């Protein structure tokens, strides 16, 4: 019934936001604020790790799409880590798996931005 965020820096241009819990209309604003804070700090590559997310709704998708747009505007990237098939399915049925790079592990996602 809650969302925990843990952000770690990969290098001066890249950060990973680890999410745990439910990302919905109540908690998605926290994710949005965190992405904006990273953008304000000059980060160009954001990885959102959904490995420990057990619920994700359209509000969360909206925040991720918004983050992707903002990052692309500055030639950056927003990639996802999503090993959970149930969560990944939400991206697949909405066709959003075509606009996000979705990795099975955080190491794969980090390798891309390093």
């Amino acid at each position, binding site marked *: 019934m809650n969302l925990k965020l843990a952000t770690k820096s990969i290098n001066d241009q890249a950060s990973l936001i680890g999410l745990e819990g439910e990302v*919905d209309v109540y908690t998605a604003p926290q994710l949005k604020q965190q992405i904006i804070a990273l953008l304000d700090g000059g980060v160009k590559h954001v990885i959102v790790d959904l490995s420990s997310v057990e619920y994700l709704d359209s509000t969360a*998708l909206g925040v991720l799409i918004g983050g992707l747009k903002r990052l692309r505007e500055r030639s950056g990237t927003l990639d996802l880590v999503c090993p959970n098939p*149930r969560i990944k399915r939400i991206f697949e049925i909405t066709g959003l798996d075509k606009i996000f790079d979705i990795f099975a592990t955080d190491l794969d996602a980090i390798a891309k931005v390093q």
Partner: protein
Amino acid sequence: MTDTMEAPVVELTIPSKPEYVGVARLTILGVASRMQFTYDEVEDIRLAVGEACTTAVERAKRANVSDGEITITSEIAADKLIVKVQDNVQCTDADSEESASDLDEQGLGALLMELLVDEFKVESTPEGTLVSMVKYPG
């Protein structure tokens, strides 16, 4: 309202606020888990009902309604689950039209509901807006 001849009904009313949508999701999870749905179908129902409540919450926010309420009525029929999500805010243009900043979420929420249940309908009622969904097991 429950009768031995009618389908059993579970009715939940929550404030139309972001922090209560999770309560509705837990309730519908309990209802759907008791039926003949697969684990994936239960997840679909949970997400669809969550989306319906989320659009109601956004509608109340846009209309500046502070005493908004959402009533989620689940009819547990032998061969299907009917869920009605009724709020007390009238449909605005924004529910159908493409409007400013809410577009992504609005569009995706409606898309998800369409995809996750077998029947899906949004209509204006004298009280506000009613979203009806039907899911069949299997």
